[in-house]
């Protein structure tokens, strides 16, 4: 029988017509601390509480855009996880905290059209997600708890051992095969330095990811073996074992390997990528790793290892996904930020945080969206504004349901666009109704004006939205300007260069600035003995295309004069050219010249911030925390900080870059973090 989640929710709507909605009550405050042109699509998250979390908010599922604007929000009493999009369908697993879960298949009308369970009474399905192969078969991972006599290993005679089984089903949900882990692993394969096999409960494998990487093989990540293995589904034999005690590969370009890893995936280029939680690294530090595996010569070449800056240590959970455009999405377990999207070159595309409950077992980013109601178009181009008259567009909204559907409101990010409608707008069953979208960019800077309209339907237990891209033009005769900092003497050698444009800029050719071309547009030169020496740097551009940050590859030479050169070639969106500009600054002595990339286990967020910064530490030891500006002036100091986290209020200080110096009271060991204040 087809379960109609949506119809059920509609009934609840009728019963709670005036109640405050779950969205009002529970939607978290989302902080986007960095945004440099991330991939299109929606982040799909299913945050759950940890057993010791005391927050009252229930677990929920939400889809948010690159600005943190939600398009879907649904709170639930049970845990949701394993979110996945295959074709037009959304899949997610849902079940009680320690019980068996099922995978639900949801169509674009939000109807549950299918349910998937593991076979048999005894195993429990946890953490997994729906993975079909090209034949329509699918694999599920189930846990297998059984009693075993471990006295031969010095353990208990009746220890409860946690194994797993990979079950393969055909299109008709018939169980085709089962691959039992207990038939293939030895209990001594596990990392006995961290896993106690003499205890009454032995989780010696801790399988945390199953990935169908071909029609004949699958990958499994085994956290407590520090191993990833590839299994032939036809024979049940290992194709290879990578990492841990039974490693068959020679590591190339990698001296540390990986451990306690999560979320193994096969990239489209054939490499494998996963999150190396790194509990056993010294010091523990988490990174994203990509290996190229040569199955003939049995070499594993480390292609890249991306660390979060500042370094993060995620002791459990977390993961990594490859996006459609090749970007990499990493999620950081219980740590902040919650997720970071990286460009393929390892630069940050976006970073997002939100309060508890915030532990997502999986986060994906896709352009999937429901069709409960749909706007008549995805983009409205209002053309050129005449300078004073509002422009109006009639946007039809179509209701695909059998009952009246209510549109309750809208959101835009700017005042340049708005909607005229008497909310709630009732869409008749399978019918249309217009809302009027108004374009009035009186207060907009000139040139290209854009926004996203989010049309909202906020029901008591379900929040749904659809987005329409809005654009228009406004006369602009003013050329853009750029302010370059630093432009003074005595700049710390660790400074970064910030180019702040008065309006969005792009290349003369009309091409947008992106993480690749922005590296080649600007020059940073050191003036050495009357000649210019190029200083290598990495550049990022923000999503609004108004800020470029040049981060020198190494600390700048002390007591040297530098020039930042912005050559011709940039224009605003109306085509007005930015005149070539340059500024000079000179560095002071090396007192504050500590590279922030070497920080230990500190987390600073949000960064950039508008005023309040949160700082958390790995170890709770007394510290002195000082905030300096780029001239080295002490602005703020906190002594004997013993808590695991503290808050720094920089809201009284102007925009710019600040240095946070953390000094261990006992050892006098210093770490320097950089914080950007931007409003």
């Amino acid at each position: 029988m087809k379960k109609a989640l949506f119809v059920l929710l509609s009934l609840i709507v009728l019963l709670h017509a005036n109640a405050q909605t779950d969205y009002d009550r529970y939607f978290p405050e989302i902080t986007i601390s960095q945004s440099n042109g991330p991939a299109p699509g929606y982040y799909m998250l299913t945050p759950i509480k940890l057993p010791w979390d005391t927050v009252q908010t229930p677990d929920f599922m939400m889809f948010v855009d690159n600005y943190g604007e939600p398009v879907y929000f649904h709170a639930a009493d049970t845990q949701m996880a394993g979110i996945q999009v295959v074709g037009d369908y959304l899949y997610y697993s849902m079940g009680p905290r320690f019980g068996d879960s099922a995978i639900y298949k949801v169509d674009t009308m939000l109807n549950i059209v299918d349910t998937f369970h593991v076979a048999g009474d005894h195993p429990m399905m946890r953490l997994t997600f729906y993975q079909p192969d090209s034949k329509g078969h699918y694999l599920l991972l189930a846990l297998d708890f059984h009693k075993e006599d471990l006295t031969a290993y010095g353990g208990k005679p009746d220890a409860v051992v946690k194994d797993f089984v990979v079950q393969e089903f055909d299109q008709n949900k018939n169980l085709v095969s089962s691959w039992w882990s207990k038939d293939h692993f030895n209990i001594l394969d596990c990392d006995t330095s961290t896993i106690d096999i003499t205890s009454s409960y032995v989780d010696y494998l801790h399988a945390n990811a199953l990935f169908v990487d071909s029609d004949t093989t699958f990958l499994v990540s085994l956290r407590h073996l520090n191993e990833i293995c590839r299994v032939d589904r036809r024979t049940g034999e290992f194709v290879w074992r990578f990492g841990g005690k039974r490693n068959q590969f020679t590591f190339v370009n990698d001296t540390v390997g990986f451990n306690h890893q999560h979320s193994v995936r096969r990239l489209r280029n054939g490499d494998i990528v996963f999150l190396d939680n790194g509990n056993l690294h010294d010091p523990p530090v988490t990174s994203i790793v990509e290996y190229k595996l040569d199955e003939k010569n049995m070499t594993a070449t480390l292609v890249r290892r991306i660390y979060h800056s500042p370094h993060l240590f995620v002791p459990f959970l977390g993961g990594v996904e490859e996006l459609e455009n090749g970007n990499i999405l990493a999620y950081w377990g219980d740590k902040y930020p919650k997720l970071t999207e990286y460009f393929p070159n390892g630069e940050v595309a976006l970073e997002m945080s939100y309060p508890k409950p915030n532990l997502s077992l999986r986060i994906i980013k896709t352009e999937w969206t429901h069709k409960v109601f749909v706007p008549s178009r995805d983009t409205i181009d209002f053309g050129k504004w005449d300078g004073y008259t509002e422009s109006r567009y009639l946007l039809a909204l179509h209701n695909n349901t059998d009952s009246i559907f209510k549109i309750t409101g809208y959101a835009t990010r700017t005042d340049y666009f708005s909607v005229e409608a008497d909310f709630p707008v009732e869409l008749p069953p399978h019918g249309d109704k217009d809302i009027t979208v108004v374009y009035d960019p009186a207060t907009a800077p000139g040139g290209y004006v854009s926004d996203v309209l989010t049309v909202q339907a906020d029901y008591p237990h379900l929040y749904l939205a659809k987005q329409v891209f809005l654009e228009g033009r406004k006369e602009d005769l003013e050329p853009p300007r750029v302010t370059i900092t630093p432009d003074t003497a005595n700049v710390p050698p660790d400074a970064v260069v910030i180019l702040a444009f008065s309006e969005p800029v792009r290349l003369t050719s009309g091409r947008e600035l992106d993480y690749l071309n922005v590296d080649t547009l600007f020059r940073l030169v050191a003036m050495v003995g009357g000649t210019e020496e190029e200083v290598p740097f990495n550049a990022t551009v923000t999503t609004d295309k108004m800020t470029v940050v040049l981060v020198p590859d190494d600390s700048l030479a002390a007591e040297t004069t530098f020039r930042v050169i912005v050559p011709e070639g940039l224009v605003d969106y109306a085509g007005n050219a930015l005149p070539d500009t340059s500024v000079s600054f000179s560095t002071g002595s090396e007192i504050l010249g500590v590279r922030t990339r070497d920080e230990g286990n500190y987390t600073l967020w949000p960064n950039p911030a508008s005023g309040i910064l949160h700082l958390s530490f790995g170890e709770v030891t007394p510290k002195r925390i000082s905030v300096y500006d780029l001239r080295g002036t002490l602005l703020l100091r906190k002594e004997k900080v013993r808590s695991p986290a503290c808050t720094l209020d920089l809201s009284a200080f102007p925009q710019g870059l600040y240095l946070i110096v953390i000094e261990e009271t006992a050892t006098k060991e210093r770490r320097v973090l950089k914080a950007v204040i931007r409003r």
Partner: protein
Amino acid sequence: MFFPHDIRSSGILSLVLTGILYWTSFTGSAQPYPHLRVTISGPLPEVNYLLATEGWLTVTGPDGDPCYFRFFPKGVRTFMRHPSGDLTCYDVGVGAFLVMDPEYRIHDTLRWPGGNPDFHSLQILPDGRVLMMAEDTRRVDMSAVVEGGDPQATVQGLLLRVQDASGNPVFSWSSWDHFSVTDADTALVDLTAAVIDYVHANRFVITPDGNYLLTSRNMSEITKIDASTGEIIWRMGGKHNQFTGDTIDFRAIHDAHFIGKDTLILFDNGLPGTDPSSIKIYRVNQTEHRVRLLHSLPHPQGLFTPVMGSVARMQKGRLLAGWGKNSEGILFSVMDTTGSLYLDVGSVPGEALWTYQVSCTTEQDSLVIVDPDTLVFVSSTDSDTLFQVVSLWNLSEDTLLMTSAKVEGKGFRVNATEATLFPGDTLFLQVSFIPPTTGTFMAVLRLTFQPRREDQIYILRKVLLQAEVVTRSPAVETALYGRLYPNPCHGRCSILLPDERPAELRVTTLEGRMVMLRHHPGGSLARLDLSFLNPGIYFIFVEDKRHHKRKTLKVVLQK
């Protein structure tokens, strides 16, 4: 003549001199309202100007110096005076026209039934009839109309409505019944766009023969509509032009209306990259559908105004041009049909103001009467401080706070800077002058009144202050004796009588007919009020009977 300080910094000379440029307040003044840049280059009509510069409803005096401001947080548009005598403006926040009396008191709101009226145009006739417009937005499959058209385009049509004094409709008209979307001027409208504003009417007025005239910017067309049937009588300009004679090449036009039975005036914005925008006046033979272009008057600076603009005929053949939004920030000009400029008002650098249109009125508010509007001090270097008194009379219905009284210029002081005036109250301000050195001194006493401090309503008044400091000698006294200020005058004038001897003042017409006789005790200043006389030139004979000293003055009285 010695100017006491930088003439650009205030309007102090505007009442006595022409050919000057000034800013209507000190730059950087803390006042939130806009500052204007004024150039006076000829005799000024006795009218106040009405502007809506974005959020600020603005009234300026004849010299362009503001006398009233009111702020509308969501914006205000089209501040105009109607044939009925009403003043109206469009409040963007309310989405309706506010109807005001000459004291700017809002006494009515004009709405479009079930929606917002179009702010571009409104006309209230003496019999209370109201002509108004509204947008009528519809979805049109433009792919069936033009190649490449948007199948889901939104097209903005136009509705016209005339209602009687009781609000009952007497005429209604829809562009969907009379204009085709393809009538749009394709230099202005992209028919393949998602949003198409094919008419963009900006003026809907009655004609001298009782029909209606519609100006449609985006069709570059003037349309005469039969008031009884709604049928189109004729179309001028655009794709369906029916007129011959002089070439009709106006584009993106505004504010066409008849200023005589057959004389049509309009603001021709033109297209970018062509001629500057101009005022055009045509003689129209409506029977034979022939036109003759009488005048084409651009701004002397050759302004191009892509959007907005207005024109009105004033007394004595002068024209009031509203220059809309242009790169020079010029708001409006008074000119004549030879193209001579009398007054030019724009924004100061850094404050790019615009007004959709500008209107004028001969009525002046009487919220606060300041008397006199000019103080003249005559002093010698050995004199003590001189004092004179200005009376402020609150004739409004509200208690008014005088929130500032500030002298712009050297040598003068005022004894109070803040005061409360209850309705009907009179307050006397004492202005003192301490002679610093010999010479001529000029200053302006600027007074600001507000109903409440938190209200963004400002009533501005000014008193011109003049002083002459001389080294006392018989020769100087003779030279100063009988000096007349101001000349030309607008009613009141003052004559210097520096010695203590009584004098007789006789005012006569050029033909010698005596119209006024005054005996003056002598010392300082004699004030004459000639406002009861017709404008013209008069003789004033000043005679010291005892010493047989006689001086003949000639004064020009303007109104």
